[in-house]
């Protein structure tokens, strides 16, 4: 999850090859990486694909090849579909605010008004917290009968809401927490992009007497299109991988109403011992994630 933000620049290519070393003579440099790549990425990925065609169990009994049985079961499994649905719903309701609010924050800070240090710190600081700390703080904020929000609502004379205990509400509460927690990252990406917009564009607009809103609409926003593409891609991928805050705050509840796909993989594989089935679900999830990446990639290529 990177590139794109690194701008093109004067390049000095690798030195012209005097003689072409083989893979082995470059091995001192690439060796450790190749070993790590093989051990912790390539081999596990291949093994996972194999496991998904078996009835492998965490108990360690001998596994049998079962063909596509796991996939057939997954496609007919309402729990799998509901976990996938929860993941997509979470992605939908978090992506839009996480892009819009971070953009708003960056536009405000980029005006250069005093207090820069404070704005950056306060918008970004939550991003540095680990999920367990976020869950502690927000679990307590949402606490019925005594939590911060509940207390404030009581002052305002409003009825208590079961922030984390009502099926229709819990996911929204998690989304609010997530917005607070992770918006700072997108904010910094936008802020950096705004600062690279050349001044002369604004100078020209000022001479033409364009209003601030006009400058925003016809200079800043159009210049941020590529950044928005990047932020959107990173955000969708991050949201699809949601696990920590949902597991730690509500354990996928109430009534599995928030359980994301990664938690279902964990439940099936590590609580239910069914590694083969968990692998099949992981592969299905991977296809989804790779599909999203490829669609975005194709789109950004077409725009260039």
């Amino acid at each position, binding site marked *: 999850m990177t590139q794109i933000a690194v701008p093109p620049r004067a390049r000095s290519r690798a030195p012209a090859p005097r003689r072409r070393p083989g893979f082995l003579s470059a091995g001192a440099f690439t060796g450790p990486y190749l070993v790590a790549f093989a051990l912790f990425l390539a081999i596990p990925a291949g093994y996972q694909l194999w496991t998904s065609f078996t009835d492998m169990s965490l108990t360690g009994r001998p596994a049998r090849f079962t063909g596509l049985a796991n996939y057939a079961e997954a496609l007919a499994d309402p729990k799998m579909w509901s976990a996938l649905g929860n993941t997509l719903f979470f992605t939908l309701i978090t992506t839009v605010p996480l892009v819009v609010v971070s953009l708003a924050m960056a536009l405000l800070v980029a005006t250069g008004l005093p207090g820069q240090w404070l704005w950056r710190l306060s918008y970004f600081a939550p991003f540095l917290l680990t999920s367990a700390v976020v869950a502690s703080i927000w679990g307590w904020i949402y606490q019925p009968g005594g939590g911060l929000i509940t207390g404030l609502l009581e002052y305002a004379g409003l009825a208590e809401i079961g922030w984390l205990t009502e099926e229709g509400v819990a996911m929204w509460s998690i989304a609010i927490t997530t917005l607070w927690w992770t918006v700072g*990252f997108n904010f910094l990406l936008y802020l950096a992009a705004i600062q690279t917009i050349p001044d002369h564009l604004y100078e020209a607009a000022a001479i033409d007497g364009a209003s601030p809103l006009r400058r925003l609409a016809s200079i800043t926003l159009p210049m941020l299109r590529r950044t928005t593409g990047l932020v959107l891609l990173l955000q969708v991928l991050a949201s699809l991988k949601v696990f920590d805050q949902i597991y730690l705050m509500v354990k996928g509840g109430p009534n599995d109403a928030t359980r994301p796909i990664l938690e279902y993989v964990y439940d099936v594989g590590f609580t239910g011992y069914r590694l083969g089935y968990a692998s099949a679900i992981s592969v299905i999830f991977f296809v989804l994630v790779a599909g999203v990446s490829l669609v975005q990639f194709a789109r950004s290529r077409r725009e260039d």
Partner: protein
Amino acid sequence: MAVQVAGTTVAVSKADRRRGTTLMLGSSRLTRVLVLVALVVFCALWLAPLVWAVLTSFKSETDAAAVPVTFWPENGWTLEAYTQVLSVGSLPVWLLNSLTTATAVTVLTVVICALAAYALSRLDFRGRRGLMVLTVAAILVPGQILLVPLYQEMQAFGLVDTFWGIVLPQVIAPVNVVVLKRFFDTVPVELEDAARIDGAGRLRVLWSVILPLSRPVLVAVTIFTFVSAWNNFLWPFIVTTDPALMTMPVGLGTVRNAYGIQYAQTMAAAVIAAAPLLVIFLFFQRQIIKGIATTGLGGQ
């Protein structure tokens, strides 16, 4: 002063900013006031949970649990929650485990990735393009989908519930390789050739020519690797069950009722857990912001 980062100029001086303000907002006073109000509102909303957590951590348990919520504690401020959290329970052990595992992950990752990035940038070996394509493709594979096979692998190696079981699967970071390689590409080859003529080997060149010139990116990669290892929950959660080996996020998140429904202690633990990274951020604020800005590193 304008900071030159990998070809991007980020204006940071006060004069530049004032100029920017006029360019973006025009000279209307009202616009400025509206923008300032919006900045303050966001700031208050984003700081409130943190401030509230810190305040609560300094209250007695009775005041922390008071209904309705009170701002000023009846029994005064106290450090009781902190002394409790640090003397009873495993928080200090978890923090130490987080420090050692995150440090090991960071050292291994940065060394492995810097070596590979140098080879990809400067050595013209057979299979180079293939390795680059594989690396870029691997960025798109989220580590989370490999939980099951990685656990099986750790089981086979006998590393479940061990220090290395937590560390090893975290050392693969294709993103870092790509980011470092792109930066190494910008270091003029002439500098390297001069050193090579003086008889320096490749490793020597990397260490004393390339790396010193790549400091900003190296610092960013190091910080982000450390932060993500320090904050990582899912993998250490899968691979450890022994509370004595747990890292801070896992211990805090899963050892339920470590602090019961004692809000002050829960918040004190949260503050202690969050403090190290917030301090690092205060010290390295510019590098972190620059790092995110130029590389897009560090997404969760």
